[in-house]
């Protein structure tokens, strides 16, 4: 007998990435109803997904750039000031400013 678990695991993951087609949704729902292993896997992925989401906001607050690196940036830019400023290819990139205005 050929099982549907391999495909079900893929669909379970894909649910986080895209909208499943109606046929896929029905097949998956029926399989999850019958198969405890796949049901456990699906609930595990939900827990993992939600946990990572919580961690995201938590982690972000703690991240700070080291003072020595801040000094290094300032020093590098001052050095540039004394030399010849501007006119690098990056200028082209910077001319197109993103739209939203916050100031």
């Amino acid at each position: 007998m050929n099982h549907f678990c391999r495909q079900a695991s893929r669909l379970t993951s894909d649910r986080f990435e895209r909208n499943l087609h109606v046929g896929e949704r029905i097949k998956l729902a029926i399989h999850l109803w019958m198969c405890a292993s796949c049901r456990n896997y699906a609930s595990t992925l939900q827990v993992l997904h939600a946990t990572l989401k919580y961690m995201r906001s938590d982690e972000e607050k703690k991240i700070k750039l080291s003072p020595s690196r801040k000094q290094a940036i300032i020093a590098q830019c001052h050095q540039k000031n004394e030399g010849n400023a501007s006119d690098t290819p990056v200028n082209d990139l910077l001319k197109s400013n993103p739209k939203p205005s916050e100031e």
Partner: protein
Amino acid sequence: MQQEEDISAWVAAYSDDLYRFARIRLQDDDAAQDVVQDAFFAAWKAKDGFKGNSSRKTWLIGILKHKIIDHIRKQIRTRKLTDELTQDPNSPWFNSDNSWQDAARVWRDSPEHLCHDDNFRSSLQECMQKLPLRQRQVFMLREIVGEDAQVVCNTFDITSTNLHVLMHRARLSLRHCLEKHGFGA
């Protein structure tokens, strides 16, 4: 609009935000610091190009994004990661009849609890490190940064099907690895 042309003021005002943005995406302290420095330097050289039709922070983040993508692409080129997509590491998880080799267990801990559990955090870190590089980076961007799927595809120059495959494999590996670390009893 006021033009503040002092690099110290820029760094004081925006460097932590930029570093946070890069650090979360690259998950690598040194690389994140380097791209932030590169971004500030590029911005400073091109400060006359700033038109003021977006906030300065938005403008700096825009430059930083390009630096981050450059960094990731360079990494992909040097490590020749293309073969990750052609191998089929699915087989360790399934028998030849497509049933589970090692059935998933139920996780009883809540996400709120897990996210403050130091054991879980260190296990997750360890399990993430075991993923192949590109799988790890893609998974990080999608699940930890919460980046849009299309942006991830563009960054890595992959199709959305490639993205789904990488995410699927990362999830299979992480689930297995985390259960081996004792989660889901």
